[in-house]
């Protein structure tokens, strides 16, 4: 086991248990999918039951990932201990990110399974439903935790505010630039963190649109690769109080 992983295991598990989500918070997030069984289609916010379940799952994934990733990662104050024992800050942050991703996957798996159960009999293929809901949850969580890590690397303290702003821009950008040329729309699409791509990916999966799936996955993976690398590079430059 690498030193970075040893740090991540011994510090991250107690963090999940005691800070975020915590035992109570974790229990609550596991119980939340009960809401999927409500008649969501009666709410004017949702067009149908499927959209209701997907929107709730997206919101859960966002809130969960934001809470876990933003409260404490490998912060600058920890770096004084890690650096003196020869532990790479970038490596420790990467291990934290991987562990958080694993946790997000487990939780998304649970939500997607309950969501699929709630939508059984709705006319959709259960397999495709499950895959698309899981992709929506994991995609949203991975994008969120990567963006928070990137902001932390830059030394931004209010990473939650900025992440929420980035999500808002990502979701509303098509409406803001709809009168612009296709080139501008494509540029905006690639510049902004692709939070809306998790939706696009889930829709393409459900529709069996392989071309759409590949395009969305590529967009998400390029963002993850670039922002993760940039965030880790900045974190590896951290020096406490200096």
């Amino acid at each position, binding site marked *: 086991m690498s030193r970075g992983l*040893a*740090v*991540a*295991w*011994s*510090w991250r598990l*107690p*963090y999940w248990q*005691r*800070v975020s989500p915590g035992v109570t918070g974790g229990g609550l997030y596991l119980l939340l999918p009960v809401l999927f069984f409500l008649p969501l289609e009666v709410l004017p916010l949702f067009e149908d039951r499927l959209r209701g379940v997907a929107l709730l799952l997206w919101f859960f994934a966002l809130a969960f990932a934001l809470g876990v990733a933003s409260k*404490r990662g490998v912060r600058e*104050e*920890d770096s*004084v*201990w*890690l*650096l*003196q*024992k*020869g*532990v790479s800050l970038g490596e420790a942050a990467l291990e934290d990110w991987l562990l958080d991703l694993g946790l997000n996957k487990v939780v998304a798996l649970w939500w997607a399974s309950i969501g699929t159960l709630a939508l059984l009999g709705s006319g959709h293929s259960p397999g495709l439903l499950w895959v698309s809901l899981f992709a929506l949850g994991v995609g949203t969580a991975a994008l969120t935790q990567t963006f928070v890590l990137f902001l932390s690397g830059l030394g931004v303290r209010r990473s939650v505010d900025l992440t929420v702003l980035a999500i808002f821009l990502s979701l509303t950008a098509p409406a803001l630039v709809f009168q612009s040329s296709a080139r501008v729309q494509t540029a905006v699409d690639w510049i902004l963190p692709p939070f809306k791509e998790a939706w696009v990916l889930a829709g393409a999966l459900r529709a069996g649109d392989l071309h759409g799936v590949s395009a969305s996955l590529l967009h998400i993976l390029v963002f993850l690769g670039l922002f993760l690398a940039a965030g880790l590079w900045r974190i590896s430059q951290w*020096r*406490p*109080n*200096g």
Partner: protein
Amino acid sequence: MPSAVDRPGRRAGTPEASLPARSGTGPDITADGLVVGYGRKRRAPLGLRGFSARFSPGITALVGPNGAGKSTFLRSACGLLAPSAGTLSVDGTDPSAFVSAHGVGFLPESPPLPGYLTPKEFLLGLAPEASALSAGDGDLYGIPGFRTILEKRIGTLSLGQKKKVALAAALSGDSGLLLLDEPTNGLDPLAVQDLREVLTRLGREGATVIVSSHHLDELQRLADVLVFVDGGRCVGNWTGSEALEQFGSFDALFEDVFRGRAA
């Protein structure tokens, strides 16, 4: 199987009973015209301004008034601050390279500790030998009472207990280089006495130990060499025996050096 931190053969409860086994001697540290500033461009006036000194294995005390540059030197020696001019080498290499290869024991003046962890969990991430830490008899790392707080949350500990956790983190590992900034602040008299024994033993074994402190009486019992720092420069150094021979006490030497400079 006994662990490195809990070796048999000594009386339980003595510092010698529970220190990590060290290998080899500590590094030499050489500073030549070292300039280290703070701020984005490292041009702020605080810090080191042409500091030159040589540190060998054994215990060296850094002595000087507040803001003299003692903490800045300790941070530079463990690679946390980069010089803007001059040179600083640890065992002939750049401090960051030395720390990456061998590690170092560094205790900051105000050590930041994650309150949600227990001391055991905290140390587990830093030092492989900590996996053998357990509650029971005897002191760990030579720090009295440390074993009794192993499983408590750091956030619930007193100031002195937190200092013990930070000290244990600095003492963990096998670096041969210990840099301690005000290590006795917040410690009870028994812990101060035991820390002195721990450091004396490490110094005797060949570790390079540099201690910054304002407690001159404590340093008098501990240090082999004294390095006086003022205004970011080294303003003199004495061996402990020379200082006592010439001035009778470290207090008198401090008065002579700094009152003389003030005058």
